[in-house]
């Protein structure tokens, strides 16, 4: 039955433990509810599916959030410190870049591409790393390595395409160096962060 299969796919939004415990029962209840509305028209079916989708979106989020904090702190002290440092670096780089551009400070603009990359890749890359590490419990440094490589690479490609299209004096080498610096910079931060976490765990 297509609707049942579709609903079973939607159940993937819930955490694994919840699916294992209640998945078959939820599907059974869905099946019963669906049987009820089968005699209705298209409007009834649409209303039913809208209710089901909203239910999954709302409750899957709650269940995921609960699983995230189950049996342990969501954010350890080192995580909060690390996150605060990341935000401070991004804000600092953003402010420096804005100041350099506004007052045309040559010494700051020399590092313009690197600062730009640190801000953009920092926001996107760190968010991805944070979500993957906290929700999927992946190894921090390895996740950071691949995420930052992909994010910096993608931003380099997008930057090159836009730069080539809008700026006749576009310099690929400077952009490349900028994203390379950003990649190495954030990777070093994550390396230090993961080492601190490991040290804290071993002490605990």
């Amino acid at each position, binding site marked *: 039955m297509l609707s049942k299969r579709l609903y079973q796919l939607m159940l993937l939004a*819930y955490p694994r433990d919840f699916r294992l415990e*209640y998945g*078959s029962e939820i599907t059974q*209840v869905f099946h019963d509810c669906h049987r009820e509305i089968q005699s209705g028209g298209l409007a009834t079916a649409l209303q039913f599916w809208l209710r089901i989708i*909203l*239910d*999954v979106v*709302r*409750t*899957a989020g709650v269940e995921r959030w609960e699983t995230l904090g189950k049996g342990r702190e969501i954010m350890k002290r080192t995580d909060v410190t690390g996150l605060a440092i990341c935000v401070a670096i991004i804000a600092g780089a953003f402010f420096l870049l804005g100041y350099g551009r506004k007052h045309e400070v040559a010494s700051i603009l020399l590092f313009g591409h690197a600062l730009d990359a640190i801000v953009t890749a920092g926001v996107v890359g760190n968010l991805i790393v944070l979500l993957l590490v906290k929700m999927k419990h992946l190894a921090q440094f390895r996740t950071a390595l691949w995420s930052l490589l992909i994010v910096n690479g993608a931003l380099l490609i997008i930057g090159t395409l836009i730069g080539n299209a809008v700026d006749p004096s576009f310099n690929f080498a400077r952009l490349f160096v900028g994203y390379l610096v950003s990649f190495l910079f954030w990777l070093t931060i994550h390396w230090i962060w993961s080492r601190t976490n490991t040290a804290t765990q071993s002490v605990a």
Partner: protein
Amino acid sequence: MLSVAKNVLTIYRVSIYRLVTDMAKQKLEPEKLLPLTSSVFHILLALSDGDLHGYGIMQEVTEHSGGQIRLGPGTLYGAIKRLLGGGLIVETDQRPDPELDDERRRYYRLTDFGRQVLKAEVQRISKLVSVAQQKRLLPKRT
């Protein structure tokens, strides 16, 4: 012999577990769990008449709320999970009508503690209704 030993061990574990959880629940005051969320209140109310399975609870809630509340499967089982965890309901093996019933369904039963919580919530709502009556927002019952 091994299966007998296993059964004895399981019974021992279950009884110890029940003793510990009962002791923990005794310390918990029903009022501390108030106010209940709308879905939790309606689920407990549905189970106050007897054991029901998930779909039965859903139907009962829709019926006693006059069709105003329709629990989604995710909302229902999320609430059931929390109610089981809090000791307000338990899963039961007893079937109201084994002949007509689907064996795959799980039935849920209100615990004594769950009933105490439900009563406390009803009293809380009743007090609110009294206040509303005093403020002439509701006609007084004769």
